[in-house]
């Protein structure tokens, strides 16, 4: 496979002397599906504009199919490379068919009328984008999603070898976003080289083979999705904490952000220990943190969702090795954490042999005179995998005066009340 688009150490910027791209090199292979990602202002759209020759470079060179862009006329470029802009608007009421037909203009000589090949290309482009049925509608009457399909059809009518998409989905609803990306993927499968700028990291992960992460006008990371979309890379470029999960079905990475915590001082200094696991404690830990509590958690297995989130939230965790039952040592550490707490929260965890001792820890806390909140969103019977032992233990705790909360919101209400009593 040859190199479809080669960007060699380019620098470019806008009139005011500000350099937006500060030396980027990049080679796009034929038939590749490459995504460009990065925070706002990193130069990803500027890179797309430079790659299609609309924006000149002060240094470096760009080659398509081995030919320098500078040696090609705009018509020649437009026959090889087509661009789909973010959005496009015209006040003039062309029909969809007229707009798509304009995509043929780089192939037509000045007074030449369309040949059979042109007509076929136009129809094919409209069929591929599912826009044939509104071919006679005026472009000014279309919805955003329809308009974007038409502009993609226009680009396809150019019959390009390379398609550059500049945030093609940024103005669209999620259903259209997926539709447009599916279309790009399909075209890629039919042999089109695709380079797309995306601001949505999850779309980038789902559709691209290779990602280039830009930061401040330079390439920060370049490689497979797994290599590029790491919490470290995202943290360093976007400046946010994220969790990277895997879509259990496709195995693709997806990313969720962790909201920054703006701790209020209402419950400042109150120490809460959260006994959780499998994601049942995430919301509670985050909320308590936001209320200003000092939060600890345990026992959690390493790699458990709650463990990852606690880590991100900067919460002290009593951790056990992955997929291992709670050992004597960690149980002891957990009890130590509980001893220092003003309040213990036992979340709505499923209980099995592995984490039964977490339940015991909560019961012990109760017996030590700690306030214990039991979150019971689902009845214990439905999440008891210990043959009834957990159910009996929980019933006993009810009798011993544990506070019952039906969801995490109630936990926060209990906290509010407690903090007014304590302060």
């Amino acid at each position, binding site marked *: 496979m040859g190199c479809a688009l080669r960007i060699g150490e380019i620098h470019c910027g806008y009139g005011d002397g500000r350099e937006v791209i500060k030396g980027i090199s990049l080679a796009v292979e034929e038939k590749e599906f490459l995504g460009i990602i990065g925070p706002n202002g990193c130069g990803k759209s500027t890179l797309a504009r430079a790659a299609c020759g*609309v924006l000149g470079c002060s240094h470096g060179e760009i080659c398509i199919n081995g030919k320098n862009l500078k040696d090609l*006329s705009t018509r020649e470029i437009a026959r090889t490379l087509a661009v789909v802009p973010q959005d496009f608007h015209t*006040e003039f009421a062309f029909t969809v068919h*007229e707009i798509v037909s*304009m995509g*043929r203009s780089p192939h037509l000589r000045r007074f030449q009328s369309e*040949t059979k090949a042109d007509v076929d290309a136009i129809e094919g482009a409209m069929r591929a984008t599912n826009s044939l049925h509104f071919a006679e509608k005026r472009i000014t009457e279309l919805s955003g999603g329809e308009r974007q399909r038409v502009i993609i059809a226009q680009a396809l009518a150019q019959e390009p070898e390379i398609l550059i998409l500049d945030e093609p989905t940024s103005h669209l609803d999620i259903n259209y976003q997926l539709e447009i990306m599916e279309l790009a993927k399909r075209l890629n499968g039919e042999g089109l080289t695709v380079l797309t700028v995306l601001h949505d990291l999850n779309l980038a992960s789902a559709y691209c083979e290779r990602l280039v992460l830009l930061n401040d006008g330079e390439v920060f990371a370049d490689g497979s999705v797994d290599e590029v979309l790491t919490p470290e890379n995202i943290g360093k470029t976007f400046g946010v904490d994220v969790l990277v999960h895997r879509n259990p079905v496709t195995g693709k990475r997806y990313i969720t952000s962790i909201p920054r915590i703006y701790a209020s001082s209402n419950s400042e200094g109150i120490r809460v220990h959260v006994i959780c696991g499998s994601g049942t404690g995430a919301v509670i830990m985050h909320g308590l943190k936001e209320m200003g509590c000092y939060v600890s958690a345990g026992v959690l297995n390493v790699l458990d969702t709650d463990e990852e989130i606690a880590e991100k939230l900067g919460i002290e965790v009593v951790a056990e090795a992955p997929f291992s039952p709670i050992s004597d040592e960690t149980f002891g550490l957990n009890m130590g954490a509980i001893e220092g707490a003003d309040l213990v929260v036992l979340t709505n965890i499923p209980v099995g042999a592995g984490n039964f001792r977490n339940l015991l820890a909560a019961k012990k806390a109760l017996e030590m005179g700690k306030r214990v909140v039991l979150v019971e969103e689902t009845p214990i019977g439905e999440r008891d995998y210990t043959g009834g032992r957990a159910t009996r233990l929980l019933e006993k705790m009810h009798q011993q005066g544990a506070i019952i909360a039906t969801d995490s919101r109630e936990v926060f209400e209990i906290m509010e009340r407690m903090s007014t009593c304590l302060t």
Partner: protein
Amino acid sequence: MMGSWPKRNWIYLVSLMLLLLGSVILAASVGAVSIPADVVARIFLKGVSGFSSRGWPETYEVILLKIRFPRVILAAMVGMALAVSGVAFQGIFKNPMADPYIIGVSSGAALGATIAILVLGGWVGVFGFSLVPLLAFSGAVATTLLVYNLARVGSRVPVTTLLLAGIAVGTFLSAITSFLMVLGGKDLHAIIFWLMGGFSAKNWDHVKAVAPFIFLGLPISLVYSRDLNLLLLGEERARQLGVEVESLKKILITVASLLAASAVAVSGIVGFVGLIIPHMVRLVTGPDHRILIPCSALFGASFVILTDLLARTIMSPTEIPLGIITALFGAPFFIYLLKRGGKATF
């Protein structure tokens, strides 16, 4: 764009040609002496083909060939020039509100004409012309060049700076014109009359002066009609689709300015034609320039012939300046377009 040059386009073209022919004959037959339409047609044919027949008073022939035909044909040419210039500027500015005077043609021409009337009023013209059209034309072209160069950023001419430079220079020149008018005193009437536009006392020489611009400008505009369509999608998009946008803009600005300048030189400032004719035509044909340009030319010609007919007949024998009539028609239509607001399709 398409191989689909819809059949209805031929219908538009043929009907507008018939309208133009009808307008010419009507305008030529109506006046202080009314001449029957068939006689007009026969004298017209005679003039065109040299085919000789008789059966009408000689005065008719004199009136038509010396007075009405030059006037009507000049009106047609000015209408074409202004309408096509308007189409081109609306395309360049991607704004349906642009008109031929948008980058200072009118203010430059007005200043030129004012200088000719006031300062050089006593001079006899060159080449059989009075100096007024000559200086009006020079003023228009010089202003356009000035605005163009002020707006230029390197080798590019961004439309926003073009618009702003046009407004600034226009205002400046208008102030000078007003100042000269204040000083002018006795010639004020002549200046005002020129500024309001019209075709009184125009002859074949004026027709000959404008004709080259029309016969060059119109085909050149047509040659670039496909690129004008692409330009309406935005300059960046046009480039992505293979149009050399900057050189296209230079050619179109030159052609459109020369069309407008030649029209202004012989007719004074006739407002609104360049704005409303492309609009009206676009409402029927749609925005495709391959049909919009010829239809605007034909309709613009008919429109100016008919408004000129009104201008000289409504209050006969007093002639109302043409600019007043076109504005009386143009302004309400313009307001109507604005009030249609979001529903407007250009």
